[in-house]
């Protein structure tokens, strides 16, 4: 199949953009970095994956005074700052499973939670209309350029077609192994995202971003090589 025919059949294939490339680079760098079990990221994943109260306790020790400090800076009120510690750490506990290893540091994830909860807390206190919330106001992806836009999410869905041709399967072998593993689980073994995350023992968010990066790398390979 030549490149024109392939594009016709898979109209969503597009060459990799700089944005995809930088996301792939940052993930590759992360994948080769040694995993420190005592890092904030590891503690957060453990908190989410196995409801580890010990891991959560350590995160609490590390972050409560920083959260309190941000509260004092934004509210200049001790009680509100204590409330913020509770509010933010409760969100860290509740949302830990949604944390995505591939998209940012634990610091940045907790920072976003703290700032956003503080903002919503203050609006509620000032009885301002709740037409917009912090999550509407700040980019969901910590300002990185790797957020899944609705359009891209659609591409990802349609990417399942990719696995159906052997020519494309051969390109899979050129992907970093963690991405290959995810693509194999989803597109070849036809597992759900949840099942695959459990089998591979990675957070669901990480699975999704590896999948997305793998699919966009495939697009690049196909766009460049054919």
């Amino acid at each position, binding site marked *: 199949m030549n490149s024109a025919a392939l594009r016709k059949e898979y109209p969503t294939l597009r060459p990799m953009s700089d944005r995809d490339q930088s996301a792939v680079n940052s993930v590759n760098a992360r994948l080769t970095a040694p995993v420190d079990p005592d890092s904030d990221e590891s503690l957060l994943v453990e908190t989410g994956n196995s409801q580890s*109260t010990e891991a959560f306790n350590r995160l609490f020790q590390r972050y409560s005074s920083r959260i309190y400090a941000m509260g004092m800076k934004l509210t200049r009120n001790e009680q509100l700052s*204590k409330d913020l510690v509770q509010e933010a750490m409760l969100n860290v506990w509740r*949302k830990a499973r*949604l944390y995505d290893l591939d998209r940012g540091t634990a610091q940045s994830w907790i920072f976003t939670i703290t700032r956003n909860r503080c*903002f919503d807390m203050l609006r509620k206190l000032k009885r*301002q*209309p709740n037409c*917009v919330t*912090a999550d509407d106001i700040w980019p969901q992806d910590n*300002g990185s350029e790797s957020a899944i836009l609705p359009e891209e999410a659609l591409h990802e869905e349609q990417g399942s077609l990719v696995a159906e041709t052997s020519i494309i399967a051969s390109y899979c072998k050129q992907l970093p192994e963690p991405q290959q593993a995810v693509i194999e689980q989803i597109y070849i073994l036809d597992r759900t995202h949840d099942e695959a995350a459990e089998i591979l023992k990675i957070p669901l968010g990480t699975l999704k971003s590896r999948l997305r990066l793998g699919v966009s790398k495939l697009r690049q390979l196909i766009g460049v090589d054919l």
Partner: protein
Amino acid sequence: MNIDLDCHPTTEILNKYVQGSLPTGWNVVLSAHLELCQKCRHEYGDLESAEVLSWSKGPVEEVANDFSDLVSNIIQQPQHAAADTPLPQESSITEIHMLDHSFTLPRVLAKAANDGLEWKKLAGGINQAKVNIDTETQCEFIYMSPGSQTPMHRHQGNEITLVLDGSFSDASGTYEAADFVIRNSEDEHQPVSEEGCLCFAVLDSPLTFTQGLARLFNPINRFKFRKTIAHQS
């Protein structure tokens, strides 16, 4: 004149947006601009990384609070299953139609306009729809019909205008979609739009009209603003 001719928020403003220390109205217009401007999204990303670093690595005073009860309360709460990720709420308004134009709103503005927009005709071909966002700013969509002209006016505080569609001009230049225009109390201007222009504007105090008959409206204008604020609070 203190005019930022490159039509993007300054680094200082972006930094305050990152830190969450601005009034909501400002945050909303910044968020909308970021959605339309890749350059500023990149700068935002860099500033946020720097802010996170200084927040997580900088010195911090130990808090003399005993949070131990807090931890045991929190861990009794259920965790979100990953599948529960809340989907972003669909806004009922995602587009604004003006004459033969329609424009898809940035996400945050669609959300802010979700309760519906009530357009009022002002003098000079200007249409205004206020959005009640917070008590510190006055936020509004402005639609300048083709060939329209606002009266010469000056601002008591800051006015940010984000151009969403079309263009307008004043003595300092012409502004097009995604342009972020800040005017402060020293600036006196008289925007005109030949092709028509949809904007979102955030003011942190009432306008002071400085020309002709429009001056008569000054006290009323101030009164109306105070009334709006009082009504909101």
